[in-house]
């Protein structure tokens, strides 16, 4: 009897341990209650932010972030979904983290614009970077985008294909190639539409840059967009994604081809119009101002708050072709310990910065209270 007990007990202990691990894994998503369906109250339905939940692992922090976005009065978010994380092996999908983010966003009444990128090792040559994807991998990327579109049917309606392809570092440190990017769109667009016809495909998301012709670092965004059209991009996207950083300029500084400022968006819009694509809307998926005390492209905190509110006003009242203005970045999961920290609205510890309160008052129809 004792000998039998001695053999059985370790087995039972192991079984109990396995059950505990399995059950705790299964209940992972339920550690945080979703609560009742929320909706965003705002005077400006175009307000949005780019969240940074890609590497936020704790469910309560994901929920708290999205709750604070909703409470600020912004109905839109852009979030980055890593291909490498969600398809760790060809044809093997893991949507657990993406489900968590999307479901909490939807629960808070937010509309998600999903940005796709970050190439898994299996889809690129050895020793290449995670932003490297040559033409041999476009069909793999298209299959992933289609799987994403199918999985999130009814929960996500907007997909951004790649990010800032006019910068060499975002194009796998290769010379930028508008025709190559259009070829990517040509493969991805029909695959996504076949999987989920309601999904709206966003293209572009170009970095505003004055890179001179032949620069090894990148290509002027206005030239790149024109080259995209010349390469036949128009049928392969529904909405143009635009990045709109203000640097040290106020949001009313006039657009100019030789300046990077907020209204440079108008020049991208002009390129669309010249190419007969004016019927398509624009979504600003990154942008805003920085208030680092030292960085040369930063402004003072009070300026940043005033400029941010004015930018939301411009999008609402002056740019009928803009559907959403999503500013970089709502909160980081941990300090970047660089000037990047001064783009945020909320600290890592969820302490709202004064700009958060000012934008929140604006969204509630009150005076912003910026000196």
């Amino acid at each position, binding site marked *: 009897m004792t000998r039998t007990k001695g053999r059985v007990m370790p087995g039972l202990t192991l079984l109990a341990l396995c059950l505990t691990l399995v059950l705790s894994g299964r209940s992972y998503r339920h550690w945080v209650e979703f609560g009742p369906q929320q909706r965003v109250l705002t005077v400006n339905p175009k307000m949005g932010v780019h969240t940074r939940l890609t590497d936020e692992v704790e469910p309560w922090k994901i929920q708290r972030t999205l709750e604070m976005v909703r409470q600020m009065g912004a109905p839109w978010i852009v979030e980055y979904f890593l291909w490498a994380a969600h398809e760790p092996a060809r044809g093997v999908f893991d949507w657990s983290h993406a489900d968590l983010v999307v479901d909490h966003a939807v629960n808070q009444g937010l509309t998600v614009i999903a940005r796709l990128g970050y190439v898994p090792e299996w889809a690129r040559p050895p020793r290449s970077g995670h932003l490297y994807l040559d033409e041999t991998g476009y069909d793999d990327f298209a299959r992933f985008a289609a799987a994403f579109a199918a999985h999130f049917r009814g929960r996500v309606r907007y997909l951004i294909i790649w990010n800032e392809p006019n910068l060499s570092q975002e194009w796998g440190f290769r010379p930028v190639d508008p025709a190559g990017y259009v070829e990517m769109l040509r493969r991805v667009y029909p695959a996504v539409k076949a999987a989920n016809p309601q999904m709206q495909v966003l293209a572009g998301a170009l970095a505003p840059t004055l890179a001179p012709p032949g620069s090894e670092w990148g290509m002027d965004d206005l030239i790149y967009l024109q080259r995209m059209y010349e390469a036949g991009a128009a049928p392969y996207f529904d909405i143009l994604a635009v990045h709109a950083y203000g640097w040290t300029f106020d949001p009313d500084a006039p657009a100019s081809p030789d300046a990077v400022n907020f209204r440079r968006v108008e020049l991208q819009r002009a390129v669309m119009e010249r190419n007969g694509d004016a019927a398509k809307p624009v979504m600003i998926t990154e942008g805003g101002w920085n208030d680092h*005390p*030292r960085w040369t492209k930063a402004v*003072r905190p*009070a300026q940043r708050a005033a400029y941010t509110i004015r930018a939301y006003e411009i999008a609402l009242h002056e740019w009928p072709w803009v559907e959403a203005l999503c500013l970089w970045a709502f909160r980081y999961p941990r300090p970047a*310990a660089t000037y990047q920290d001064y783009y945020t609205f909320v600290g890592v510890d969820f302490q709202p910065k*004064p700009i958060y309160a000012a934008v929140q008052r604006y969204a509630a129809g009150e005076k912003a209270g*910026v*000196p």
Partner: protein
Amino acid sequence: MSRLIGFLRAAPPATRRLAPLLLLGAVIVAALGLAARTGLFARDRAWAHIQETGVWRVGMDPSFPPFENLDVTTGQPVGFDVDLAQAIAARWGVRVEFVGIGFDQLLDAVAAHRVHSALSALPIMPHRTREVRFSEPYIEAGLVLVAPREKAAAFPVASSQRAEPALWLAENVAGRLAVEWGSEGDALARAAQAQAAGRLQLVLRESGEAALAAVVAGEADLAIVDAITLALFNRERPALAIVGPILRSDPYAIIVPADAGELLSQVNAALAALRSDGILDELKARWLAPDAP
């Protein structure tokens, strides 16, 4: 360990005789490995290069007066950091070559040995100490509490600071507190106000200079700003003084590559000498204010 002893006891006599030698060999190998990891035997190629060429290449973003900016007439960098670099180089008997590098690229440039050092009003960043090393501080740029100079001596504050500056402020300060809206000082003041049971009223201004002007104008009793803003304000009109301890320290330091131990020692020795000679104070008086911390 007991298993090792047991193994040795069971081993043949020849192996037992070799055991002390094997142990000694293992200790030596481990010590060499540790020394290599800590850079003990590494040649400091940055310092060697300075010695060979007679040139100290210093990275700088000349866009932050009065520490560094370009002189509009000569196009050359001028400022506190420029003079500090020249003073250090003079002690070494070498020439300074300033290399213009963007603020956000400076540490990477040092880590990659593109320059020997960076001297550009750079704070100490503990998260970067695997790639670069930071000298002893040469100036304090952190948050300070400020009062009118004539009231500073009588200001009832404790001589030592508690670990939590917001709590220290809440317990030791009362009245109207001016800050730059949205700044680090604003965040600290709001945290203190939440614990001060109504004894602190915030006076929000659009800049640090405006917060200090509010104290001078009698619109506020105190202000929280960074020490550099205060020094520059006092340069124009020395009406204000620091009271209490530094609320949140943020000193500037000189950056060298992680494997440049000799260069770091030489920089620290030069800074100590400049401090004891009074030259560092002269530079503060020239570019900031005589009592800059």
